[in-house]
């Protein structure tokens, strides 16, 4: 296969080159436009001014075997940690309650993959709520009054 690819220039006759070109064009045409757009739009996240907070705890990953899961999985909780900040989240009914440590008042942005942004306030003790919980994957960006930003990874509830 590798050898074959190297012979494209020299070894392929016109018929083969034309057939290969046809295959290459068909492969590209088979990809739906929305899929390409999704990829292009992802660039909006390039160099976003924020420190990245990684998922360090997810109650879903902590699941016990199926027998006991029904009792234990009623509350979903997640923790995101960055160098300077920890974000704890808990799903309660249709809302997402959270707290930022160390506590800092500010604004929390909710970014969906479609590019929509909504905001919620973070109070002096670092508490906030997101309601309703976005249906699609989303990420949270916490901005403090001192100008520092922290961005979580993608969250799916």
């Amino acid at each position, binding site marked *: *296969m*590798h*050898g074959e*690819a*190297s*012979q*494209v*220039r*020299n*070894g*392929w*006759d*016109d*018929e083969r*080159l*034309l057939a*290969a*070109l*046809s*295959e*290459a*064009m*068909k*492969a*590209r045409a*088979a*990809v*739906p436009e*929305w*899929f*390409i757009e*999704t*990829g*292009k739009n*992802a*660039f909006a*996240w*390039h*160099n976003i001014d924020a420190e*990245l907070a990684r998922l360090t705890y997810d109650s879903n990953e902590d699941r016990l*075997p*199926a027998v006991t*899961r029904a009792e234990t999985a009623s509350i979903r909780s997640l923790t995101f940690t960055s160098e300077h900040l920890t974000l704890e989240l808990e799903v309660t009914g249709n809302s997402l309650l959270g707290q930022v440590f160390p506590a800092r008042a500010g604004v929390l942005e909710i970014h969906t*993959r479609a590019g929509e942004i909504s905001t919620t306030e973070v109070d002096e003790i670092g508490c906030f709520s997101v309601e309703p919980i976005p249906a699609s*994957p989303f990420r949270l960006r916490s901005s403090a009054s001192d100008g520092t930003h922290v961005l979580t990874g*993608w969250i799916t509830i």
Partner: protein
Amino acid sequence: MRDDPRVVSLVTRASGGDQGAWHELVERYASLVYTICTRYRLSNHDIEDVGQSVWLLLVEQLGKLREPAALPGWLATTTARECLRVVTAANKAECLGTGLDDSVLFVDNAVIDEEILVAERNAALRAAFAELPPRCQQLLSMLISDPPHSYTEINAKTGIPVGSIGPQRARCLERMRRSSALAALGEGDEKIDARGGEPGA
């Protein structure tokens, strides 16, 4: 192929904030990501989910890729991993099982490797085609359309005399063969000297 300077340049430029370079990377490798998703027989909804994850991960990794030229391999591996995540999650939800079982589709590494090679070759062919003069692009497009245009139809649409179509086709293909985009495919390969015979008619 490992050091395809085009890929390295696109990654470097995108990493520096060049949106056009990013778009070109997506155009170049979307079919690789998409084809692997279809190998896992994902629904359109899941394909979109995986696609978003893969491209977002790449955006975050752009400046950190140790070997930018190895991007296709990175994309393929990341896509396969994301597909498996989606398939496993769906399986868990449906079966209340404890994870993987026999019904989870497993796609062999060899299949993924093959897809990487095909994607590289296809990307190089499309790049070589894009460098051709418009008249060559038009002629070759008509020849590879499905169904292909007859010489009479080509003559009607382009005005190229029927007797000149064959020689022009050969010249356009020869031009493609000599393009630097295709040259990248052969570089660094020990079989570069495995030249075939004269290009056929």
